[in-house]
């Protein structure tokens, strides 16, 4: 056997021969491009990738990546991926999903996947709308939103995906935006490196049914003031270094730096702190800048590893003899 060497790929190696059928201008293109770029540099053989998806625009993702892929049924990608990863821990398993697929029909599977901490990487494309079914409100649509199914405005209280994930004890929660090239890649790299379920929320623009959904946060002119780019161990500063996040009691507050207030007075990001993670997950515009990057990362044992440890232990100590299994404990012999 030859010594395995890390394969050398370019982004092109992860582009499939399928014609991409997303609408021109869709944010999904940018996410696909960043994922292909990151996959190429991970040093994982292409055949070891399995991309699993449910239903929705985002769930067409596997067709466009030259790896093993499975476009399953609505909401169930997490469960399919759990079965795959548990039985094939050698694979790098990624789930592409959307706000409807993951948070509505697949909500149950999502929380249990996070709770179990199956070693998967979830990319949740959040565009706050149902795109493939042509424009109904989603579980992340804002209250009052007028859509085809909410002509008088939505009255559903929306989920905060990161808070939901942390509520299910996710071991990794991160956030980025389709048009943030560098930051998005960083988050995908961190997700790939994390052992356990990596939950990545990606703000994504649906230019047909919910155009400009994230502009108020992500436009170049306002981005620095309305996003908080997190770095582990660093104080939480934004607004071109002029603003920071401070803790008053149990609540965060936005402070203007200067006048005696410096970076040293600001909250320091600690990815491993569950309580801090909960605070960050609830920070939302306009009261706060929206945290970007890794909100929470606290490795714990993965479900798939523990299942396979039990299997190995049972095999080491027990019998694999099928005949004695069939015979059981009490038999009698007729001569």
């Amino acid at each position: 056997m030859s010594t395995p060497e890390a394969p050398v790929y370019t982004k092109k190696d992860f582009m499939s021969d399928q014609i991409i059928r997303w609408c021109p201008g869709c944010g999904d293109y940018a996410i696909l491009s960043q994922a292909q770029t990151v996959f190429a540099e991970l040093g994982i053989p292409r055949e070891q990738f399995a991309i699993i998806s449910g239903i929705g625009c985002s769930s067409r993702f596997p067709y466009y990546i030259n790896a093993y892929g499975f476009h399953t049924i609505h909401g169930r990608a997490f469960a399919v991926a759990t079965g795959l990863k548990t039985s094939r821990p050698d694979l790098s398993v990624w789930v592409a999903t959307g706000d409807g697929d993951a948070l509505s029909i697949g909500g149950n599977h999502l929380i249990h996947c996070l709770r179990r901490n199956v070693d998967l990487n979830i990319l949740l494309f959040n565009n706050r709308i149902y795109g493939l079914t042509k424009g109904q409100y989603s579980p992340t649509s804002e209250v009052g939103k007028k859509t085809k199914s909410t002509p008088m405005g939505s009255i559903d209280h929306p989920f905060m995906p990161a808070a939901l994930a942390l509520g299910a004890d996710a071991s990794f929660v991160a956030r980025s935006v389709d048009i943030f090239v560098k930051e998005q890649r960083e988050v995908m790299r961190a997700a790939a490196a994390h052992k356990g379920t990596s939950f990545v929320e990606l703000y994504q623009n649906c230019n047909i049914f919910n155009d400009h959904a994230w502009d108020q946060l992500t436009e170049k002119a306002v981005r620095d003031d309305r996003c908080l780019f997190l770095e582990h161990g660093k104080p939480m500063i934004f607004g071109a270094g002029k603003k920071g996040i401070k803790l008053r009691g149990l609540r965060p507050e936005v402070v203007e730096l200067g006048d005696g207030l410096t970076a040293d007075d600001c909250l320091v990001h600690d990815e491993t702190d569950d309580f801090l993670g909960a605070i960050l997950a609830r920070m939302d515009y306009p009261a706060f800048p929206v945290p970007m990057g890794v909100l929470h990362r606290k490795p714990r044992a993965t479900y798939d590893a523990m299942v396979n440890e039990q299997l190995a232990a049972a095999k080491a100590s027990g019998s694999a003899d099928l005949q004695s299994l069939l015979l059981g404990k009490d038999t009698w012999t007729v001569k």
Partner: protein
Amino acid sequence: MKSTQSVDHVVIRFAGDSGDGMQIVGSQFTNTTALLGNDLATFPDFPAEIRAPAGTLAGVSGFQLHFANHDIFTPGDSPEALVAMNPAALKANIDDLKPGGLVIVNQEKFIDREFEKCGITSNPLDDGSLAAFRVVPVDLARHTREAVEGLGLSGKETERCKNFYALGITYWLYTRPMETTERWIEAKFKEPYREANIRALRAGYNYAETVELFHERFEVAPMKQAPGVYRNIMGNQATALGLVVGASKAGVPLFLGSYPITPASDILHYLAAFKSHGVCTFQAEDEIAAITSAIGASFGGSIGLTTTSGPGMALKTEAMGLAVMTELPLVIVNIQRGGPSTGLPTKTEQSDLLQSVYGRNGECPLPVIAASTPSDCFEMAVEAVRIATTYMTPVILLTDGYLANGSEPWRVPNVDDIPAFPVTFHTEVAGFKAYSRNPETLARPWVRPGTPGLEHRIGGLEKQEGTGNVSYDPTNHENMVKLRAAKVAGIKVPDIEVHGDEGGLLVVGWGSTYGAIRVAVDQARRAGLRVGHAHIRNIHPLPANTDEVLRRYDRVIVPEMNLGQLVKVLRDLTLIDCVSVPKVKGQAFKVSEVLTAIRHHQVVEAK
């Protein structure tokens, strides 16, 4: 000296409160009897509630055992002996007892307070209502108390030993040795409960031997069995074992995704304990995750398996379609129970046949097979894995609550004698197409992710023939619909074999009605009627000779525990007007009921 009378067979029923340990007593009597070499069949019957209010009719749990010195096929229509631990158990079961039958009752419970709980207005022990039976009241509570005295047990703990006292009485009565049960007690209980239960068992045995309540005891000689090693087996056990052996014969790991549901959960329990055989079990968050995780495992190169019962089948339906579309091997086991909705969770029924054959969106064919007896569950489970992996298709295996919890002796097969059907994963890169076809089976290639050069995508959207790419082409869709149907229709299925007469009346059955039909047909033939029995194990596709066999008979009747579902399938595929004999009571057919139907429909030949 009491005399011992040899009899050919005995049917005994134990009945008490859910908490009285009747299922333990029944299974202990069963194991002991199996080891003695009798043929046997059992029928546990218990309520869905774990502990319904004590003393009420709703809380009565029963266990019926039929054992014999010859081949038997059913747990028996009516017992000749009944052990009733309280008035509710007596009231719920006495109508089934044979006239002249023996009733052993727990005397201390026959008091006004207990009568009120189950709506009895006068004491059946002295109001004459039991005149047709031999009634033996035993003060179980007092005797058990005396037996365990000095062990420091509380009143409640003492009370719990009385089922073994009752078991001891029946062991003496039917000349059963106590060793098997004593061994089981020793392994199961800690001191002082170990000693207490053994004392109670022996005290019951000695009591029966000493007192003048029983004038004779019975023995049932071992039956003449084919040489071999035997064990007693329940249907769910046999299903679990068959799945493990099937996966081994295919040479792929077994992955079970399952959600607890009565009466299927025991398969999950068994398989979870088979880890040393490489069996991976996943208790999913719901029925849908159970099947979709299994599909994920099949995609990864395991044989995916999911086990459930009716309501769970309904939830899994969409995912079955995914497995049909992606042509992945998958085994779905449905332990049918009374429906619809939650229905009768602990009672048996065969009412998911049409759901299994037809009940999915789109043209969505998949093979359906059914086990006929507890031990047949083993063979059909192996067969399910064989069909799934050979034809790259999901397979539904139907059993039911009656098979799942019923038991019979099983001549354990030699594993090496079971033919292997090894899976070959596709690895050849040149010319690879994800939806190319094996010309013989029409199966597509199975590729394990991780195989270099064969990266490809599958999914629930319609596939282009050959490449497997997404296709909305109208002609391609129709072709693929026909191809998937042709693949399932082309599955090679053994021919129907008829037991009994040619011509006249044919009784067609499927699943757990096997025993009742077989016995009834044999009784009818002994009485001079011209009747045959055909039992269908492969429901979809049907055996190739189905039409021809059915046409050899003047009349075909189909007893089923539903309103005539196999009849609909047979009419659909053969245009033969089979006559339905339905029973939908959550209970198996009695031999006498099938016999009545045979007499009613018998073909009287013109002289």
